[in-house]
């Protein structure tokens, strides 16, 4: 069980890293983009870059304030 936990922790750290909020933003915005494209017919190519830049800034701000 502890080995499974350590493997899970390794992969979490490997992919998600120091700030899980960035990963949440990326996944949520991709879902929102898919909804806008397929349900509303909006070609929202600009949405992900905008939120990625904002998430990076937010994460950096948090890191430099801590």
């Amino acid at each position, binding site marked *: 069980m502890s080995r499974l936990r350590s493997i899970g922790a390794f992969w979490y750290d490997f992919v998600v890293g120091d700030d899980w909020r960035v990963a949440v933003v990326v996944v949520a915005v991709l879902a929102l983009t898919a909804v806008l494209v397929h349900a509303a017919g909006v070609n929202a190519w600009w949405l992900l870059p905008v939120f990625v830049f904002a*998430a990076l800034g937010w994460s950096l701000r948090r890191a*430099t304030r801590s």
Partner: protein
Amino acid sequence: MTALPLILTVFVACAVEAIEALTIVLAAGLTREWRSTFQGMAVALAVLAAIVAALGPTITLLPLTALRLVVGALLAIFGLQWLRKAILRATGYKSLHDEASAYLREVTAAKAAAPSSRGRVHDWYAFTLSFKGVLLEGLEVVFIVITFGANQHDVGAAVIGAAAAVIVVAVTGVLVRAPLARVPENAMKFAVGIMLTSFGIFWGAEGAGVSWPGQDAALLVLVPVVALVALCYTVLLRPRRGRSPAEPAAEQVVSS
């Protein structure tokens, strides 16, 4: 997209990881024993090659849209990690990865460890140190090789970029017989972070269903824009800090 940007991106990313692996291998080999060190390195490389051989062809069987969505999300998250660390290091909030001090730490630990042998391995410590170092640093390379290669349906080109980087770093390491401390690792990580984030945004959004203006040519705008934003954050964080980068950093990081 031609194979050249793919090969170059994988080459730079792989070179950074290979430099870090070289530091560990040199510490094990020069302090303990070369034979066990090479055994550990060979087993780790075999494991990494097996992962690429197994996952590479399998992942290309997935539908392209689903592949781009998943891989794009992972690359964007992964790339932002690299970029975040590179910016924090460039602005002094994290300590720079120093191969010379990392080498000294490994040498000190290697000298203190008691000798023990298992099976055909004379020095188990040298074997495991080398194996873990190469495997852990190599996993990031495997991730990049598979995701970039699968998305471009050209895993072979990605493997060429990775293999070339390993050969260049290994040959340089053999010639120098010291950690490659003068290589601008942070600048390389900054560049790789920009590429990973850009491709992640591009493929992720495509996977979600968007059509980029200009199709693939959008990458020619996206990469410089990501670079520009990252540089702006770097510049903005420097004066705000109000202390020199030589002072103790907020986050101390010695790993990749």
